[in-house]
């Protein structure tokens, strides 16, 4: 049941992604990207990961708003210019190559049943509440066992906002001479 729903969602997301690429109207493209994000969020819900689903849907709404506000409200409405055939072909070939190289690695990992995966996950599930006091094991992993990763993520966000501030400030302080 869940597998069928997931396959349906995947097909929906692929169609929406292709539509986002193919359409000339920017608003349609942005809405198609939003449909892909919505599909990802529902897929996370079906896979019983509500934490990721909440984050995904919130970030998706925000990104959609940003895209609409930063492009369409400024009068940029349609995509112009020719599609690069050579670049697209090179990208597709590279992605297929990487997929072929990565497949043996992933099939050798044996998710969920392998000893190396079992050890960490069973420890988190059994000892997480008593060790960290956090009933939500995802939060326990994010902010206690793997807090370094969260610190790195916060640093990335901080750096991004500094970069945006600096870039936009230069543009605003020194208007282009025409």
């Amino acid at each position: 049941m869940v597998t069928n729903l997931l396959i349906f969602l995947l097909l929906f997301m692929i169609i929406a992604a292709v539509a986002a690429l193919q359409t000339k109207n920017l608003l349609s493209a942005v809405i198609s990207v939003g449909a892909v994000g919505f599909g990802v969020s529902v897929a996370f819900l079906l896979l019983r990961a509500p934490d990721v689903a909440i984050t995904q849907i919130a970030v998706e709404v925000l990104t959609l708003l940003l895209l609409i506000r930063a492009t369409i409200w400024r009068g940029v409405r349609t995509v112009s210019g020719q599609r690069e055939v050579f670049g697209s072909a090179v990208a597709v070939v590279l992605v297929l190559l990487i997929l072929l190289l990565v497949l043996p690695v992933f099939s050798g990992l044996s998710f969920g049943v392998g000893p190396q995966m079992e050890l960490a996950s069973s420890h988190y599930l059994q000892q997480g509440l008593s060790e960290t006091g956090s009933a939500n094991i995802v939060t326990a992993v994010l902010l206690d066992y793997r807090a370094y990763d969260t610190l790195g993520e916060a640093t990335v966000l901080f750096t991004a906002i500094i970069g945006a501030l600096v870039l936009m400030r230069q543009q605003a302080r020194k208007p282009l001479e025409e």
Partner: protein
Amino acid sequence: MTGMTVIVKTVTRWTAALIFLYGAYVVAYGHLGPGGGFAGGVILACAYILITLAYGGEHALRVLPRAVASRLDSFGALAFLALALVGMVGGGLFFTNWLQQKWAGKAFHVFNGGIIPLANVAIAIKVCMSLFLVFFILSSVRMFGKDEQIDFRSKEVD
């Protein structure tokens, strides 16, 4: 950046506080239910962005001035780092959950988890303010000064 119609403004007046409340709930109960600092922070930022879109940039900057947002952004990041460093003093290692080791609360209660709820709040402040700032910077450049307005409706694009 001007506001929208009266209908949008009225609906925003009713819903913005509820969205903010939901974001605060997701942050505060992040260690008990689904959610957490990042998701809650994004929802809080969405509430601010709703106000910005409905009422316009000037009103949004009156609610939350840009300098305050910048400082709260830095404060959130520094608070998270400070929690990690205090763990070094209290427990010996970076990011040690010393609070939980000393005063463990009841399981499944809000006041539990040591530094985890505090870290959630710090991350929420940080994420909310950075996303609000990103939105504001990308959507309007008027905040850099009243006389320096740049029209991004540029001539080359069309």
